[in-house]
């Protein structure tokens, strides 16, 4: 945390008062934001935290007066330097947007106009506010340099698609900074980015705040990001503010059951791995059907009768703290009660034969090309060897594009194996002929990332699971019974048989996805980012369910994720993947406790943790982006970004020449680095 946080100035830069926003859908009026008030003081960073549907983004858009139709601000004031933005004509607002208030969006891929050169997009922000074209271009270059884009003279005339995700977000930030705004609203600016890139962007934002004294509203769902960047915090739930206060204080002693539960539901990187997560039951409410009274009461373990009918007002809880909870107001405890906890115990590999074994597998993902043309091969998976034992969870960590999904698809036979071999229960299935396919389908099943996409919207839950049973030859009444049993097993009820996916929440859908995967009684589940599409409070539920099933059914998991805390929580062993290769593999304790590969170090160091006041000074933050698998670097694939590699130490020329083998290290795990163990975590 950057120590520039003085006491708030007396006059707030932005004051939002009693803001209410509705969406008129035909004859129903949906309240997305109700009675939201907060202050932002100059030079400070305000975090607005909430899950999907909490109203945090609508609040931001209301401030910008950029609500999508049919959204409308019903009540309230947005005072910027004392001027009510909601009362001025649109033309004046246009002059304020981009000039005084700027905004950074979640998805830099979507936020840049794909057919406009980046330089022009930055310059446009200046042009529309009266800067001359020549001046605007000059400033655009300066801005690009300021946000850390290399080789500005060339890149200024490139198109967004020629930039990586992180670079694009830097461009978006450059656009936002163009007119030296006093307020920057960042709407989930790092959610679409990888951990190492997220760290870069967060560092950039912190730096800008420091250098330019800009005030920031940071909208996020990630407590880690809040802890790292924000001074003050607003927690939203069901369209209302439920808790407000300085970050440090809120994290130390949350005054609302929701804040408290949220902090406990997130797995910690530094956790030992044997404590259970405390999941928040249920799912966040949709604005159309808010529960009566306190919107959180159906999920709250402290709810009292009053919570059912009366909406608690935001009331002061001491020094700059406010909370909207009847229980807290009465001085009650709001820490979540452990519901049904699972004592976790690590299992060691039992010496049994591995159920799944990969031996030096390579997968070519280049399209086969036309009738007469040949395309050069692209190995997204380039020589991977790993084993999954019965009852064991192997976590596979890596950033997007590292090939982890291709790997899982190769195991399932969706992608063809170019080289190497895959064994399932000791049988070679590399050929993926009919018999091999059957064996794979019976032994290994897949849980998909996006439960919205992996269920056919036109088939009922029952039909989707029946199909899986049908394949293994279970039909008729027996199949119907199995469907119900499977649904109950994953925590759903019989009613769901005839429902369609759109009637289910994300968490419920993921449960169905798991039920379907279990239909064939597999020995191994490949879970490909099974919780990353879910809200934080739901993630814990699904992780707990997976753990429960593993212990009960003796399943082995290949658990693929980019979220290191989640992987640490569930995994026995962890493999770290970079650009098609495994760079480090070992037990969770070994890898997290004493990482040997500089990439692992960087990953761990980049992950923001929900602990305020942690120093970020000594973080290992990688530069640049992962190269394309079509043109991998020679020698060590990580060398282009390696903090201990030839990019920083010109004498380490071996990294350019020789690809390091995965070899045992002193601390037990295997790592593929010529200088394993040299980089280390410097935690504050």
């Amino acid at each position, binding site marked *: 945390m950057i120590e520039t946080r003085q006491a708030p100035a007396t006059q707030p830069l932005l004051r939002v008062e009693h803001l209410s926003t509705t969406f008129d859908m035909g004859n129903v009026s949906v309240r997305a934001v109700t009675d939201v008030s907060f202050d932002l003081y100059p030079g400070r960073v305000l975090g607005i935290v909430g899950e999907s549907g909490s109203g945090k983004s609508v609040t931001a858009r209301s401030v910008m007066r*950029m609500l999508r139709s049919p959204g409308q601000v019903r009540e309230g004031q947005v005072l910027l330097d004392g001027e009510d933005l909601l009362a001025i004509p649109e033309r004046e607002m246009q002059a304020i947007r981009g000039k005084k208030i700027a*905004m950074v*969006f979640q998805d830099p891929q979507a*936020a840049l*106009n*794909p*057919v406009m050169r980046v330089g022009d997009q930055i310059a*446009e922000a200046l042009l529309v506010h009266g800067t001359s074209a020549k001046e605007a271009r000059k400033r655009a270059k300066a801005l690009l340099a300021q946000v850390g884009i290399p080789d500005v003279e060339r890149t200024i005339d490139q198109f967004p*698609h020629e930039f990586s995700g992180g670079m694009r977000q830097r461009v978006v930030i450059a656009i936002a900074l163009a007119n030296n705004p006093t307020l920057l609203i960042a709407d989930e600016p790092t959610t679409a980015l990888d951990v190492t890139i997220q760290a870069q962007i967060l560092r950039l934002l912190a730096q800008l705040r420091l250098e330019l004294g800009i005030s920031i509203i940071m909208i996020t769902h990630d407590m880690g990001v809040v802890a790292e960047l924000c001074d003050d915090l607003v927690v939203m739930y069901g369209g209302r503010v439920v808790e407000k206060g300085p970050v440090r204080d809120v994290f130390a002693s949350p005054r609302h059951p929701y804040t408290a539960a949220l902090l406990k539901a997130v797995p910690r990187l530094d956790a030992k791995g044997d404590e259970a997560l405390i999941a928040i039951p249920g799912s966040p409410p949709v604005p159309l059907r808010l529960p009566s009274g306190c919107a959180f009461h159906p999920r709250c373990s402290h709810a009292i009768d009053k919570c059912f009918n009366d909406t608690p007002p935001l009331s002061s809880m001491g020094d700059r703290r406010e909370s909207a909870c009847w229980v807290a107001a009465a001085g009650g405890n709001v820490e979540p009660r452990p519901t049904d906890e699972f004592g976790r115990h690590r299992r060691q590999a039992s010496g049994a034969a591995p159920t799944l074994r990969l031996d030096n597998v390579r997968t070519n993902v280049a399209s086969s090309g*036309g009738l007469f043309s040949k395309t050069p091969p692209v190995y997204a998976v380039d020589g991977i060897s790993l084993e999954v034992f019965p009852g064991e969870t192997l976590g596979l960590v890596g950033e997007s594009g590292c090939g982890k999904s291709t790997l899982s698809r190769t195991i399932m036979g969706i992608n063809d194996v170019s080289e190497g071999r895959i064994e399932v229960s000791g049988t070679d299935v590399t050929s993926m002929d009919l018999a091999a396919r059957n064996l794979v389908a019976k032994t290994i099943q897949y849980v998909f990332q996006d439960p919205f996409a992996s269920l056919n919207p036109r088939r009922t839950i029952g039909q989707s699971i029946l199909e899986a049973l049908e394949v293994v030859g279970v039909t008729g009444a027996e199949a119907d019974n199995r469907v119900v049993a499977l649904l109950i097993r994953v925590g759903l009820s019989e009613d769901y048989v005839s429902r369609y996916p759109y009637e289910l929440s994300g968490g419920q859908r993921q449960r169905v996805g798991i039920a379907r995967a279990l239909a064939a009684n597999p020995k191994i589940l490949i879970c490909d980012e099974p919780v990353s599409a879910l809200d934080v409070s739901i993630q814990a539920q699904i992780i707990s369910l997976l753990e429960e099933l593993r212990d009960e059914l003796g399943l082995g998991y290949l658990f693929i994720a980019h979220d290191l805390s989640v992987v640490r929580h569930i995994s026995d062993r962890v493999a770290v993947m970079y650009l098609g290769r495994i760079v480090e593999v070992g037990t969770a304790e070994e890898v997290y406790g004493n990482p040997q590969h500089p990439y692992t170090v960087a990953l761990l160091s980049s992950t923001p943790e929900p602990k305020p006041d942690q120093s970020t000074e000594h973080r290992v933050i990688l530069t640049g982006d992962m190269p394309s698998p079509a043109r991998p670097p020679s020698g060590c694939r990580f060398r282009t970004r390696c903090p201990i590699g030839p990019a920083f130490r010109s004498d380490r020329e071996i990294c350019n020449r020789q690809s390091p083998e995965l070899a045992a290290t002193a601390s037990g795990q295997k790592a593929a680095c010529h200088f394993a163990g040299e980089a280390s975590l410097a935690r504050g």
Partner: protein
Amino acid sequence: MISFLLRKLPSVAVVALISSAIAFILPRLAPGDPALAIAGSDATPEQLAAVREQMGLSKPLIQQYLDWMFGMFRGDFGQSFIMRRPVTTVIGSRLESTLELAFLAMLLMIAIGLVLGVLAGSPRSKWARVVLDIMTTLFLATPPFLTGLLLILFLGIFFPILPISGEVGFFENPWLALQFLILPALALALPQAAIVARLLQTAMNSARGEDYVDLAKAKGVSPGRITWRHVLRNSLGTAVVALGLRAGDLLAGAIVIEAIFARNGLGSLAVYSVQSRDYMVLQVLILGAVILAVFIQLFSEIILAALDPRIRLES
């Protein structure tokens, strides 16, 4: 771009080869005899036989096909059975009429389609939107020949403003030629323009929901500039693809339009060739149409790549 075209060449060749075989065999499957056009309907059987012999129609089909194919490689597309001169000359003499029609129709289609599409895709009053919607739906509903008939009835018969049939070469008398061209060109263009407009409208509406429009708004860009610089610019690709596809339809529509407006273009030549079984002309016309369709497709891909920097010309 050159390498893109080169890479496409083999598959174009395959399509051309298959099409040539179909173009050759399909008309010949129909009963009838090109010799009849020469011999006349009241010829005696021996007169017909003599003419057939003279025309080389008694050769085996395979040989006729190979003669044609090898001829084409030498630049000889064959001789019209009926008109007794090179097919290229025959087609060339009709080309002007169709080109004039297609060119004007294309211009009208682009102009009307883009204007309607942009208007409908811009945020404006509900009333204007409804009017535009009705217009596009009406144009969309009436295929070219119906539009043509209605135009003839209203602008040619009830209010005789424009000539309804016949033609005059553009270079002979441009003013008169335009009078003859305007109705058929409109008839061809209106329904196609409606399709283009509708697609453009849809594309613009979806582009309007994109984040980059929000970002532009957050920059303080005015609504007009957003429409032109961001929304329209990103929707043009759709319009180009639509125009490319429509260009093919335009040619197909030209056949019927030429019949209705009594124009002596390639369409009427094609119909005449079918009726008189002038296979030599017909097969070249069909092959030409298929290859033209392929090239229009390639061309729109090239334009698309030029419009959208994300698209690179690959197979």
